[in-house]
Every structure is written in structure tokens, then in C-alpha cells.
């Protein structure tokens, strides 16, 4: 019973944080931007979904779509402000970091100004039911979270594997210089990447809002966890991010159960430091099939 509860919690958290980490990881490896504005996109799409539930419909599909679309818009905004003007100037990594941090700060303050400090909650988009599976009680939001995040992330990854745009993005992830030589427009692809990863952030925001409330600063902790999972998995590797998300989700659920919720970040970072001490390039160092050039 207890084990089942911890396990299901761990899997739910792993799915949500994994979605964020994969988004951050794709952003970093394809456009070379550590997107600190991700927390802002996360909060923004939470509010987008909330507005949709207030003014359009409380239907789960509508709310989820609104969140994803707002996230994609937020991604485009970050791309237009922090990627396009400076991506080919010297020192882009640091400048991009600062620019996205600025977007994050300005954006969250703007959200605070517009929507006020009171946190909002979204309707239960997955309904209200539960099943009892061999003594483990699975509530609707847990099942919905896991299914939706796995389906969407798998769809995104399959799309990246099979389509022409996906080939462009993967080519840019591996060698941006050669990508421009074969005729891939770095700026256009940047917009695609940021819209997709923004959409992933929006998805994670709506899914997490089934557990937590939406607030202007609510994106900060998920973003830190997403960044640390992406780092732990090896920046740029999707499989590494998935494995790291499972490990860290398990750790979070176990710590919350055994020690108490206030110790979660402590054990999280101890674990990350240990992993990076053993494998400085992250977990994906094990999985890297290609020979170094």
C-alpha cells in the first residue's frame, strides 16, 4: 500500500518534470540557449489555461489545449526577444542566459501585476474517479497526468524522428555549423524549437496544476527541477532526461514520505551532485553511441 503510493507519486512527478526537462534539453542542444524564461512560460501558460476555463469552457481538452498554445506563444516570445537579436553575436550563451533571466523576472512581475498575488486553481480536467488496482488506489488525475504526458512527449519525439522539420532540428542539435551549410535556416528552426518546447512547458503547467495552484512565481521550482533533471541526464539527451526524471521523481516521492517535504530539494541536489561526480557528462554519457568526432 505504502510502496504503491510512493511509486505512483514518483511516476507522476517523473512524467511532469521529465516533460519540462526534455523541453529544456531540446532548447539547449538545438539553439544553444539555457532558457531561464522557462519558469515564466510555465506560469504564463497556467494563466492561459485558467483564462480559458473562466471564459471559454471548463472542458479538459479546451483547458489543456489553451495551456499548450499559450506555452507555445510564450516560447515564440522568448525566441523573438532572447534568441533572434543575439544568437550570432559573441558570447551568446551568457548573454542568452541573462536575457532569458530578465524575461523571467519581468514576466513574473507582469503576471503578478495583471492577475494579482492570489493563486488560482484549474478545474479537474480529468474528471473525478478512481480505480483500485491490486490494492493501489489510482486517482483520475494521476492516470491522466501520466497518460497525457507520455503520449505527448512520445508524439513530439516521433515527430522529431520522422518528419523533415524534425530532421532539421536534430541536425541543428548535432552540428549547427553544418546545418546552415546544408541549407537549414537557424532562425526559422529556432522559432519551431521554441514553440514546441514552450508547448511542452504549457502541458507540464496544466498537468501540475492538478496538484498545485497556479501563481505568478509557481514556475520557478518546476523550472529548477527541470534544469537539474536535464543536467543530470546530460544536457541534450532525451533518453538521459527520461532516466534522470524517473530517478529524481522516485527520490522526491521517497523523501517526501520518509523525511518530510521540506527536505526534498536537499536530497534532490545531493543526488544530482553524486551523479555528476560519478558521471560528469550526466547519465547519457553511458548511452552515447556515437564516436567523438
Amino acid at each position, binding site marked *: 500500500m505504502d510502496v504503491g503510493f510512493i511509486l505512483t507519486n514518483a511516476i507522476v512527478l517523473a512524467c511532469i518534470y521529465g516533460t519540462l526537462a526534455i523541453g529544456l534539453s531540446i532548447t539547449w542542444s538545438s539553439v544553444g540557449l539555457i532558457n531561464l524564461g522557462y519558469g515564466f512560460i510555465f506560469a504564463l501558460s497556467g494563466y492561459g489555461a485558467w483564462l480559458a476555463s473562466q471564459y471559454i469552457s471548463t472542458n479538459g481538452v479546451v483547458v489543456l489545449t489553451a495551456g499548450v498554445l499559450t506555452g507555445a506563444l510564450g516560447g515564440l516570445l522568448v525566441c523573438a526577444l532572447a534568441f533572434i537579436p543575439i544568437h*550570432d553575436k559573441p558570447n551568446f550563451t551568457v548573454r542568452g542566459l541573462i536575457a532569458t533571466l530578465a524575461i523571467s523576472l519581468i514576466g513574473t512581475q507582469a503576471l503578478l501585476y495583471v492577475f494579482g498575488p492570489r493563486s488560482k486553481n484549474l478545474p479537474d480536467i480529468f474528471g473525478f474517479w478512481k480505480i483500485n488496482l491490486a490494492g493501489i488506489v489510482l486517482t483520475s488525475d494521476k492516470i491522466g497526468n501520466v497518460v497525457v504526458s507520455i503520449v505527448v512527449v512520445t508524439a513530439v519525439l516521433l515527430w522529431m524522428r520522422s518528419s*523533415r522539420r524534425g*530532421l532539421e532540428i536534430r*541536425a541543428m542539435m*548535432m*552540428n549547427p555549423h553544418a546545418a546552415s*551549410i546544408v541549407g537549414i*535556416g537557424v532562425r526559422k528552426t529556432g522559432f519551431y524549437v521554441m514553440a514546441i518546447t514552450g508547448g511542452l512547458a504549457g502541458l507540464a503547467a496544466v498537468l501540475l496544476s492538478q496538484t498545485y495552484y497556479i501563481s505568478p512565481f509557481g514556475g520557478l521550482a518546476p523550472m529548477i527541477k527541470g534544469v537539474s533533471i536535464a543536467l543530470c541526464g546530460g544536457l541534450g539527451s532525451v533518453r538521459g532526461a527520461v532516466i534522470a526524471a524517473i530517478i529524481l521523481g522516485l527520490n522526491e516521492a521517497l523523501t517526501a514520505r520518509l523525511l518530510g517535504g521540506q527536505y526534498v530539494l536537499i536530497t534532490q541536489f545531493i543526488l544530482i551532485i553524486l551523479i555528476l561526480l560519478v558521471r560528469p557528462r550526466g547519465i547519457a554519457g553511458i548511452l552515447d553511441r556515437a564516436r*567523438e*568526432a
Partner: protein
Amino acid sequence: MSAPVAAQPAAPAERREILKVKGLSAGYGPMRVIHDLDLSVYSGERVGIVGLNGHGKSTLFYAIAGLTGWQRGSILLNGVEVGRTRSQGPGRYTHLVVRQGLALIPQGDEIFHGLTVEEHLDSGAFTPRAWKERKERKEKILKIFPPLVKLLKTPVGRLSGGERRMVSIGRGLMADASLFLVDEPSLGLAPKIGKGVMEALFDVELGQSAMIIAEQNVALLEGRVDRVIGMHVGKLKGEASASLSFQTRREL
């Protein structure tokens, strides 16, 4: 008036000017690598550029593709101006130049090490027309480089140097291009393999397109290209049809 025209059978009427470079200077930061360079290449022509390391062969190619740190001067590709005066932003407009009909096969291995050979060849055909015809084009490439047939599903990161070069050149030939720039195709390869790669390049049917090959080793080009041009400290020096290259005005 008609007599001198008839006396030049090598220059039929449809000989188009594919590339016309005028007054091109380019470099990186404070360094100026190419000085006021002029160059014309016509359709159906295979041109060799010969010069030592660091004299600007690669930079000339990069400048045509818009990949240098800065550049100025006019570059007409198929009659369209692609050379902008830039002070920054290397690679920002490269994809537009590529769409205009350029295929750059860069020095060394500019490859995507995680993609398979097949995806690699696909990635060479990003222009809309080439993408539709990519199946036939792939078959053509595999006929030129038969060793690649068995490797289609292998990630390029696992290939040997010679195989990588084949992939890299194959990727360039996949494009629907009118100008092929090949930068030191034999670099770093065993002489026999390097020679095979060069042979493959000489055997490519150009049709209405043109090809420029940069090489350090004149012997590899001798007799197989239409013209050989020397390059020395950022300028083109001397020119000869390849068959005469021993008796020509080489000012090196």
C-alpha cells in the same frame, strides 16, 4: 564577325555564368584573409583552386556561402546577388544562398554524428525540389559510392574517415545545386582512398552546373579539370587550362 565565334567550339551559346565574384574581401575580426578577389565560373566547368594552407581557399568558399566573420563585395550566383556587406552574423543568410543553388562540401568532416547515413543524405536535399526527388538522388549517390549501401542505417559517428568523407560529399551532391564547392576532398585520407574520392568527383556529370575543387596537391587535379587557378595570400594568381599547366604564367 562570325568567323571568330566559330573558332571557339568550346564556348557554345548556352554557356552561362554561374558564379561571378567581384571585389570580394572577407575575413574574421581584425584579420583580412581575402583581398579584392575576382572570379568567374561558367556552367559545365570544373575548376581547380590550388594554394598552400592559410592562403584563403576555404575562406573564399565560406565567403560565397556567407559564413565568414565579415565580408564585402559582390557575389552573383545564377545572376542573383548573394554577397552582402556584412560586419557580423556568420551563417545568418547561408540557407538563402543554399536555396539559390549552392552546395558546399566543407573541409574536414562537418557531419551530424548521431544521424544515420540515410538521414544524412536526406539532410543534403533540403531545397524543396530536391526533397521531392530524394529517392532517385539517393540511388544516384549510392551508385557513385557503393560502399555506403551497406551502411545506410549506421550512425555516421561510427564510420571511418574515408566513409565519412563519402557521406559528406554525397550529402553535397544530393542538393539541387548549380555550383558545387568542394574543399580539399583528399585531406587526411590515405592516398589511395583520396584518389578514389577525387575520381568520383571527376566522374560526376555536371550538366548545367559547375564545380570548384580546392586542393593543395596539383598532381591530383592535373588533366582532370578545365582550369587550374593558383591562390596566394588571399588573391587569385595565374590561370591555365589544366592540360597546359606546366607552361603557363604561374606567378606564384
